[in-house]
């Protein structure tokens, strides 16, 4: 079994490219006067979140890696390291990413880690680097277990995951409007991912793809960017702080406060952890499906248009 295989840490090697691309996008916006927006404190927070993500990987990476190596030790399968094995691993890992990302929006425990990526009201290349510090605590590493048990080496799985992350960097921009139709049909693009970062009711919880947008089309979560509705970036309730510590941990604090409030049963406490963001035991808050339903009730002509339900049914908010 190929235990001694090493793959490059491509994300760290991509750091100079990230910096150069941010500078290029910034200059493009300043010179052309279009193609996006930058603001100092927002960008600084995003960059510090990115640095913290790298640091958390250094500090906590051994947890996931230890888990993966334990799986590798017990699996009898080894698919080797041929080009086609790596290519297949990349595609299957992108499918894995789709579901982790979808869980990240529909399970509050996972959202607590992912929310910081959506906490900027800007959408530029620094937003791509606004990454979680707490991914280890979501336990979503288990989603990679099938790949390793199927015989893909853990190093390869992490390698293609890094490539996936690098791919997603360049799509966090408003400087690119639309790409050729064949590319938009298959690949995740700036247009598709702008939608994913939208807080407009129709744009909530869609386009979870990492590299291939076909997963969203396959699983019914694709919403196109409409020229008639500009994307409004950020959270449903935007943060009132640029403090990276608060950005990183605010939803975890929210879960703790909700789940430990007096007078709840154990099921309600659990639901505050695992139900979709916005769920509450007394119905006083709104999930994304509630928000969409309310929007349709206010604008009946929008019913059934991309990203919106046909009816005003409320409370159907448990689907992951």
């Amino acid at each position, binding site marked *: 079994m190929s235990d001694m295989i090493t793959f490059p840490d491509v994300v760290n090697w991509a*750091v100079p490219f990230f*910096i150069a691309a941010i*500078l290029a996008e*910034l200059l493009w916006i300043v010179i052309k006067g279009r193609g996006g927006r930058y603001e100092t404190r927002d960008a600084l927070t995003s960059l510090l979140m990115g640095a913290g993500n790298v640091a958390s990987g250094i500090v906590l990476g051994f947890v996931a890696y230890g888990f993966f190596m334990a799986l590798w030790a017990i699996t009898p399968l080894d698919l080797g390291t041929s080009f086609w094995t790596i290519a297949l691993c990349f595609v299957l890992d992108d499918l894995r990413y789709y579901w982790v990302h979808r869980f990240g929006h529909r399970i509050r425990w996972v959202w607590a880690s992912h929310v910081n990526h959506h906490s900027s009201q*800007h959408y530029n290349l620094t937003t791509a680097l606004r990454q979680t510090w707490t991914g280890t605590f979501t336990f979503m590493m288990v989603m990679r277990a099938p790949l390793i048990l199927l015989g893909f080496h853990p190093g390869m799985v992490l390698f293609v995951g890094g490539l996936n992350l690098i791919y997603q960097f360049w799509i966090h921009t408003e400087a690119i409007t639309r790409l050729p139709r064949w590319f938009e049909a298959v690949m995740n693009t700036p247009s598709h991912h702008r939608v994913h970062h939208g807080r407009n009711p129709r744009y909530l919880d869609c386009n979870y793809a990492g590299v291939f947008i076909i997963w969203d089309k396959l699983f019914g979560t694709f919403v196109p960017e409409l020229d008639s509705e500009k994307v409004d970036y950020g959270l449903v309730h*935007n943060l*009132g702080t640029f403090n990276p510590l608060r950005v990183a941990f605010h939803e975890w604090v929210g879960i703790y406060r909700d789940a430990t409030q007096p007078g709840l049963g154990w099921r309600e406490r659990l639901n505050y952890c695992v139900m979709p963001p916005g769920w509450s035991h007394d119905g006083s808050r709104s999930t994304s499906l509630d928000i969409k339903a309310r929007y349709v009730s206010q604008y009946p002509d929008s019913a059934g248009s991309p990203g919106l339900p046909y009816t005003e049914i409320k409370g159907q908010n448990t689907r992951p």
Partner: protein
Amino acid sequence: MPLSVLLPLVGVGIIGIAVMLHVLGLSRAAQLPDEVAAKAAWLREFPDATPTRVILSHDHHAALIETDDGPGVVWAMGADTTARALSGARIRRTAKGLRIDLPDFTAPHIHLRLDPDEAAHWPTYMKDSA
């Protein structure tokens, strides 16, 4: 990449980009041109709490909002805005205006730069309508 290269690269990159943004004038706080804009900024965060009164700060960086559900405030968050209801708020004067402390981990302290007259009167509005 060795940490001895990565860490300085990240540090210099972050500081360099932040300095460049500031030098390019991209640190300016958002302005609310008029009451309509302030109302829109409030409704963006609280679409179901229609403002009954809007008081814009003289520097147009913040607005006091009154609703049937109680008072709130809209303020500049960098080039954008955000808003919070003021339930449970503790308000005190500062040299530059007001400081609002909220029991909200995502907006624990709101610093409003206000004229002396505004700083004197806004707490009254906030309490009267609470």
